[in-house]
C-alpha cells in the first residue's frame, strides 16, 4: 500500500472506532460523567471541606486532576480492550487481517480510537469539575503531553489485554483487579507525603503515580515526583508497550493460527 492508501485505511479504522463509542455513548461517555460528578461531590465537596489543604491546595483542587486522569486511563484502556476483543470474538478482526493494512496502521487506528475517547471523556469530566472548582492551567504543554502519552499508553495496554483475552470476563479482570487498585493507590486522593517513607517508596513502583502527578503538575504546578522522571517513566512504558503490541501483531499470536 502506498502512503495515501495507508492514510485511507487508517482514517477508516479511526472513523469506525469513533463511530462505535459514539453509538453506545450511554455506555462509554455518560458513566464517567456521572461517576466523576459523584466523586467531586462526595470526596471533593462534602468530605474535602473537612480535610482542608493538601499539597498546598484546597482538597477539591488537589483531587480534580487525579480524577480527570483516572477517567482518561479507564476510558482509553477500556475502549481498545472492548473494541478489539469484540472484533476477535465475532471474528470481524479477520476483515483487517486479510486486508493489506500494515500492522502499525492497525495498531495506531485502535490507539487513536482509545486516545480520542480518553480525551473526549476528559473534556466532559473537566467541564463537570468547573461546577465545583475553578481550574487554572499551570502549564498547558505539560497537560497536553501527559494526556496524550497516558492515553496512548493505556490504549496499548488495552490492546495487549484484548489479544490475550479468551472471554469477556478476561477483559474486565485487569481493569477491576489491577487498574482500579493502582489508580486508587496512585495518589489520586492523597499526596505521597502523607504516607510513611516505606509505603511512599512502594508507591513509586506504581506507574499511575507518575501519570497522576505529572498531570497534577501541569494543572496545579504541584507534584510528589520529579516531573522529568515522571515523563521518562511514562515514555518508557509507552515505548515498551508499543513494541510488545507490534510483536503480537507481527507474530500473530492469538490472532492467527
Amino acid at each position, binding site marked *: 500500500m502506498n502512503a495515501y492508501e*495507508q492514510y485511507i485505511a487508517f482514517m*477508516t479504522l479511526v472513523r469506525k472506532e469513533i463511530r462505535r463509542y459514539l453509538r453506545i455513548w450511554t455506555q462509554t461517555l455518560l458513566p464517567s460523567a456521572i461517576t466523576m460528578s459523584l466523586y467531586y461531590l462526595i470526596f471533593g465537596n462534602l468530605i474535602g471541606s473537612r480535610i482542608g489543604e493538601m499539597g498546598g491546595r484546597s482538597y477539591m483542587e488537589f483531587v480534580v486532576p487525579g480524577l480527570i486522569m483516572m477517567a482518561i486511563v479507564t476510558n482509553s484502556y477500556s475502549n481498545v480492550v472492548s473494541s478489539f476483543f469484540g472484533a476477535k470474538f465475532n471474528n470481524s478482526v479477520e*476483515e483487517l487481517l486479510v486486508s493489506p*493494512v500494515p500492522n502499525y496502521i492497525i495498531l495506531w487506528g485502535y490507539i487513536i480510537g482509545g486516545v480520542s475517547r480518553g480525551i473526549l471523556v476528559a473534556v466532559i469530566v473537566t467541564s463537570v469539575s468547573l461546577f465545583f472548582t475553578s481550574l487554572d492551567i499551570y502549564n498547558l504543554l505539560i497537560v497536553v503531553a501527559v494526556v496524550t502519552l497516558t492515553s496512548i499508553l493505556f490504549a496499548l495496554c488495552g490492546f495487549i489485554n484484548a489479544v490475550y483475552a479468551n472471554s469477556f470476563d478476561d477483559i474486565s479482570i485487569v481493569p477491576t483487579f489491577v487498574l482500579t487498585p493502582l489508580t486508587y493507590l496512585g495518589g489520586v486522593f492523597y499526596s505521597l507525603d502523607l504516607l510513611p517513607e516505606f509505603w511512599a517508596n512502594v508507591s513509586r513502583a506504581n506507574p499511575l503515580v507518575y501519570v497522576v502527578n505529572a498531570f497534577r503538575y501541569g494543572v496545579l504546578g504541584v507534584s510528589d515526583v520529579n516531573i522529568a522522571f515522571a515523563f521518562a517513566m511514562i515514555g518508557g512504558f509507552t515505548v515498551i508497550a508499543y513494541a510488545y503490541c507490534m510483536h503480537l501483531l507481527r507474530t500473530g499470536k492469538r490472532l*492467527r493460527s
Partner: protein
Amino acid sequence: MTPALSITGLEKTYGNGFQALKGIDLEVAQGEFFALLGPNGAGKSTTIGIISSLVAKTAGKVSVHGIDIDEDFPGAKKFLGIVPQEFNFNVFEKVEDILVQQAGFYGIPLKTARERTDHFLDRLGLAEKRNVTARMLSGGMKRRLMIARALIHQPKLLILDEPTAGVDIEMRRSMYDFLREINAAGTTIILTTHYLEEAEALCRNMAIINHGKIVTNTSIRELLRDLTKESFVLDCLAPLPELISVTDFNVIKRDEHTIEVQIEKGQDLAQAFDGLREQGVKVLSMRNESNRLEQVFVNVLEQNA
C-alpha cells in the same frame, strides 16, 4: 500466463502436532472456475487460511498472481478476495458500513467505496437492506453480504469457502448466475463446497484434497470419463412384469413402476432401452441414481483412504 494461484509443497502442522497439510502442490490458471473438494477436516480451510494469512504455514510456497506471500503479502492480498465459511463481520454494524469500511482497508477512497457499495448491494439484492444492521439479515443475505465484501476491492482471485451452505435453492441459483457472470468478466474463482452438483455445474477443473494431500487434480470432464459404472433409475408407465432382465445389463426391479439399470463403461444405453422395449416396458423418465461427480468423489476417497 502467470497462474492466479500457485502452491508448492505447502505444509501445515498445528501447535498440537496435527499435520493438516502434507505437501500440497496446486496451480489454478487465471480465469478458471476451480473446485477444491474434500471431506470435512481434509485441509481445505487450512489451505484457504494460509492463502489469506489467517493461518501461518509450516513450509512451502504460495504465490497469488505471481506475488510470493513471503515476499510481499500485502501486494498479494490486493489480488485476493475471501468469502469464509463462518460469518465474520460485526453484526451490530450497518450493511453499508461493513462494505465501505472494507473498501477503506484496501485504501479505496470514500467516494469510490460508496459507488462500489451501491453497485454490489444492487447486484446482490441487498440494496433495500443497506441501512439495516447485519444481525437482522437472513442467512442467505449474510452470505451475499460476505460475497459483496470480498469483491469490494475488485480482486482478481475470489476464494469462496462453502458459500451456499444454508442458502435456499432460489437464492443459490441467483448466486450461481452472479458468480458465473463475474467469472466470465475475468475473475478467477476457487470454490470449496459439499454440494458436488454445484461444483459440477459451475467448475471446469477441480482438485480433491484428503488427509492433507491433493489426491486428484484434473478437469471435471476427465474425472467423469473415469467413471466405470453408472446407475440410472427409470420410472415406467405401466406396472412392470414379474421378471425383467436385459442381456449384458444388470437390471434391478425396485417396485411396480421403477427399475434401476447399471451400465458399465463402454456400454450403449440405447441397447438397454431396446431390451426393455422388447419386454413392453415404456419409460416415462430417467435420472442418475446419484450425482455422477459424487460417485467419482467417493471412489477417489476410497482409493486414497
